[in-house]
């Protein structure tokens, strides 16, 4: 029955990943909150975002934060769905929807971050 209902993996790796990404997200979130609420401008003006985005490592942090958040969130949602009895077709539909939504919105986020120009670098060249 269980062999039919689920895959061969026990799920322990995804369980552990959920804990690791969770702790990482807490650390990222603390940094995020400090940056966004240091004062009203630091979190809410275009100039502040542009200034931060001149540092590529800051873009990388954002990309990692977004990716981890999406993974942790959608894996968490899947964990909730999995608590209910589902027909195989419904399972497949839900997993597909979560994966597609996750990839689409993560990609959108990447496009947004990469689209922010590097004016300081451009004027230097």
């Amino acid at each position: 029955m269980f062999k039919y209902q689920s895959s061969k993996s026990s799920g322990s790796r995804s369980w552990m990943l959920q804990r690791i990404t969770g702790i990482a997200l807490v650390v990222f979130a603390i940094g995020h909150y400090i940056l966004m609420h240091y004062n009203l401008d630091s979190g809410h003006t275009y100039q502040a975002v542009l200034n931060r985005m001149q540092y590529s490592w800051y873009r990388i942090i954002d990309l990692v934060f977004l990716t981890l958040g999406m993974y942790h969130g959608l894996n968490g949602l899947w964990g909730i769905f999995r608590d209910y009895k589902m027909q195989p077709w419904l399972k497949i539909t839900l997993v597909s929807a979560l994966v597609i939504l996750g990839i689409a919105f993560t990609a959108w986020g990447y496009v947004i971050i990469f689209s922010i120009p590097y004016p300081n670098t451009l004027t230097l060249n």
Partner: protein
Amino acid sequence: MADEYKDIKTFDQKEWIKENLSYKKDSGSWAWIYHRITGIALIAYLFLHVYSLSTLTDGKAAFETKMSTFTSGPYLVLEWVLFIFVLFHSLNGVRIVLVDLADGAKYHKTLYKVSWIAGIILFLGMGYIMFSHLLLK
């Protein structure tokens, strides 16, 4: 079936909501319920967050028009409310990790209480940080 099982209450499938609500809930059950609610809210917010920042691609004017909405009073209050969800999910998440990996089952109720106290202090602190410059200006 042996007699010893006949007094055990069976789960009524048709009344599953009522049955679930009738369970006696201790701090751990509430933590589990709140963790789900806050988790669902946070992933919904993450999607919204990507959408709301999408005007960054359209340059300064478009972004600041949108941001002027988000920095208005009601949205700042919503942002503060969002912090409740972030705080609960983070603090309870740390608690879950400690229960799973650091023998936390022995002290999880204390941790739950400490999380609430820390959460309320951080929430009020954030309220001061977010609103003091608006009120004192």
